[in-house]
């Protein structure tokens, strides 16, 4: 309807991202998107070249490592366990996108950066056909599950290793961004947890999208799961994590990344 703002939707929490429709569109189109990495954006984090992919994955060409974060698999089931029967299709949708990114980059290593499952019971109760899907994706490469706050106990009966942190190629991979600066802290850190999203506004129109956020020293990953939601980069939970002078948000567009300097975002 003309005149109905698309922002009128019903987020249950004001900071929950509500406008992630395109991730589902992505899931639907993901089979067609496995070709060359069009629309991706190359950046440098702590001296390492990294490719931000519009599907939400980060690829490090030098080491052949692909990072995804906050898959929140089985979120629907986690709610159903508590009496809210959310649609049971989120896991398959998220895995379809993941499969497309993996096909696109054919990485040697996949790192899933925590909150891989929405709750502790998620991986244990994962239906067999979804389990096989992950098995197929992991074949022929290393897979590392970083533990998150939602799933601190690691995964059950899935390929790959579980760990709290990973140091690799001059970078550190962990779920929650460290509050300590310097090496082994924020310097060279790739983290998730906060689901960064950003809003740009031009001529009365505003668009909000999940984003990679990096000031060149550390990088925050966008949430990958289709039901994961997002938190504005200007929210106070993000305070102190970045040098705002050099912070750039790399927003996930339909087919490409849009990079916008922090000062040009609105909150």
């Amino acid at each position, binding site marked *: *309807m003309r005149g109905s703002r698309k922002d009128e*939707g019903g987020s249950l*929490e004001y900071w929950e991202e509500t406008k*992630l429709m395109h991730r589902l569109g992505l899931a639907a189109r993901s089979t067609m998107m496995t070709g060359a990495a069009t629309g991706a954006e190359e950046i440098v984090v702590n001296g390492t070249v990294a490719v931000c992919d519009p599907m939400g994955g980060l690829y490090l060409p030098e080491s052949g490592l692909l990072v995804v974060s906050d898959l929140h698999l089985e979120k629907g089931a986690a709610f159903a366990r508590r009496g809210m029967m959310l649609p*049971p299709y989120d896991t398959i949708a998220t895995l379809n996108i993941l499969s497309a990114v993996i096909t696109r980059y054919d990485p040697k290593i996949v790192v899933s950066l925590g909150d891989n499952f929405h709750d502790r019971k998620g991986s244990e109760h994962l239906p067999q056909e979804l389990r096989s899907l992950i098995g197929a994706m992991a074949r022929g490469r290393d897979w590392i599950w970083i533990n998150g706050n939602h799933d601190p106990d690691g995964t059950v009966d899935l390929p790959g290793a579980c760990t709290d942190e990973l140091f690799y190629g001059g970078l550190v991979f962990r779920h929650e961004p460290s509050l300590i600066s310097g090496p082994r802290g924020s310097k060279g850190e790739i983290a998730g947890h906060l689901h960064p999203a950003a809003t740009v506004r031009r001529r009365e129109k505003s668009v909000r999208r999940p984003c990679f956020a990096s000031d060149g020293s550390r990088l925050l990953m966008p949430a990958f799961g289709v039901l994961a939601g997002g938190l504005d980069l200007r929210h106070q939970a993000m305070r102190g994590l970045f040098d705002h002078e050099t912070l750039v948000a790399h927003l996930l567009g339909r087919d490409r990344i849009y990079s916008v300097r922090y000062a*040009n975002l609105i909150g």
Partner: protein
Amino acid sequence: MDIVETQSSGRDAALLPRPFQTWFAEKGWQPRAHQLELLSRATAGENMLLIAPTGAGKTLAGFLPSLTDLTRRGKIPPGSAFTGIHTLYVSPLKALTVDIERNLMKPVTEMGLSVTVENRTGDTPQAKRQRQRLNPPDILLTTPEQVALLLANKEAERFFKDLKYVVLDELHSLVTSKRGHLLSLDLARIRRHAPHVRTIGLSATVADPMDLQRWLVPQSQRETGRPAPPAGLVHVTGGAAPDIAIMKTDDRIPWSGHVSTYAMPEVYEEIKRHKTTLIFVNTRFQAELLFQTLWTINEDNLPIALHHGSLDAGQRRKVEAAMAANRLRAIVATSTLDMGIDWGDVDLVVHVGAPKGASRLAQRIGRSNHRMDEPSKAILVPANRFEVMECQAALDANYLGAQDTPPVGEGALDVLAQHVLGMACAEPFDPVELYDEIVSASPYANLSWEMFERIVDFVATGGYALRSYERYAKIRKTKEGRWRVSNPQVAQQYRLNLGTIVEATELNVRLVRRNANGSLGRGGPGRGGLSLGKVEEYFLEQLVQGDTFLFAGKVLRFEGIRENECLVSNAFSLDPKIPAYAGGKFPLTTYLAAQVRSMLADPDRWSVLPDQVRDWLNIQRDRSIVPKQDELLIETFPRGKRFFLIAYCFEGRLAHQTLGMLLTRRLDRIGAHPLGFVATDYSLAIWGLSDMGAMIGSGRLSLSDLFDEDMLGDDLEAWLNESYMLKRTFRNCAVISGLIERRHPGKEKTGRQVTVSTDLIYDVLRTHEPDHVLLEATRRDAASGLLDIGRLGDMLKRIRGHITHRDLDRVSPLAIPIMLEIGKEPVPGEAQDAVLQEAAEELIAEALG
């Protein structure tokens, strides 16, 4: 039957037990004829509907059958077996139950009746509720939500088995909403516990009393399966005719817009001339703006107050108290003050903006002079020239006693889901028995067994084709084939989520100080500032820091959002940047629309209109034509580099918006290159790059094809599937049906709560299970509500073969109002990546520059 007189002849006074006769005599009163009529028929076993104007003694009439019966019964001796409630009174407003308790206790005490009366609302303390279940009062005054709670309890049968009467107040307003649907289901359940219970409906005048008369009785009786005879009708007419005028102004009446600021000097003069003036407006935004305007000219510092639903509850209570104590000279209010509460000595009602419906106008005018024999006094203040006609039409309608309340409508499916779970909480249910009970409620009389089964399945496991939640089922089938709740937490969850009113997500507005250097007040933002009330989230989402807007009578500067609060500072400006605030805007009713069309078509009736409006219509007649009553006028003309098509449908904004969406799709297909449209209550404007007038002239574009009813088929379906608007409807359905938990203000966890957005659920469902029952419920809701599809369909039928086209060389007089609306509408959410692209290009320019 129609009863015109207000005093009885005393013929039926014998119906009244002795204490009542004495009481009436001592007061020097006579029972009114309609009170006795209702009493005698209800006592004889009839279900009854009483339609009467305000001040006719409706409440006493509704309770007389109960009070007399209870008087005859006498006090229950101590030590008797448990006795359940005798009478259940249900009102839509908590405040009304408190009011009624006070009004009812007066005669009860004065006559010395041994009748216990108590109310039970969300505010009733837990201990008292507990006690009420163990030792129920004779008469319980409550709300629909509380009835549902009582019925979902294991002791429901015991509590309701002795029930003789259910009195339903303000029935006309209850039945058209989802609350009414829930109440109808509850009534069906009550009848199972108390098969001989009688219903007494109290209502203001409605378009079709038979709808209500049927609503009050079971639509299929246990023994016969046939509907019970409709409730008996007592219709009190008469009362003094209201004195209504349209505000005359020396100023220019605006062409478009919805704020009648131009007339405020005149309104102010009226306030000075009267004791207490109630100023009704249609939207909060109007309320804010007019309140501010009045204060800028309030040279005498008259106590003028503001009252609308977004204000802080504390502030609202203060205003209400001041009003009741007659300390105010005027109050600017929205529909929050619409219903049945006494408002002191109001001697003038000013209605700003067109009333949009004749019934609504009558209801609001009823707020002044709460006595039946004195005329109410009201002044209408139209906001633009079309509204002048609308006000005149409403005025005629009120004199004619015409009514245009919406129809009762089909029962909503999300409400049904809630009820099914509630019934499982009460006791394990047999599906066939429950289905029979449900279809005895008139809104659900047409519910199919298949749909009922899908709802039960939805309640149990979400109703998905992928049956992966069986082990988490909320209700399960027992060996005996009954459905029972899986665990006590489910019942707990039901109680917390019960109800059909879903609040829009709102943020608290807090005033903070802004220091000279631009930083916010000391001690960190958000601390210690004054709380001003709540604003819908979607409204705030479109603001950027520094934007100014009007709220709580102040011009405020938006500073940002922190946690669940919106921080604002004083703008120290009189000129807010006023964003559209569409919340609470009513569309024009079908009835009033027809009246406006008929007035337009009949130049003889123009004589009552102000000169400016008459001249406007006369010029229209010269330049183009004025459409006949059942004719659809289409005008086309070029302006700037664009071509416009205006359709004067007069079917209300919602139906026009739907029509605009569908027509632009069709025009696009035909190759007319439409660029956009805008809709008002009266007309629809579409503009594009191709000369639509020439296309119609050459036969390339056929108007009868364009306006064919078949647009409500595939085109509608295709649009709905990509529309963002359905999401809001879906959210309500998701909450009411129990798919997601209701938010409980103040109980949210701080920090990131584990939660999920309904928009995302909607998208997942649409992608993976487009036929899901909750999407079906959403579509049905939208069709009857936001989209107004029924009305659009009626119009398309009506105008078939009656479309008149005028190709003009420039904008017509009648088109001016809508042309002025163009550009005020926000841009739709498409072309998003283009916005991103621009933002990105700015960065590139910055980098290279």
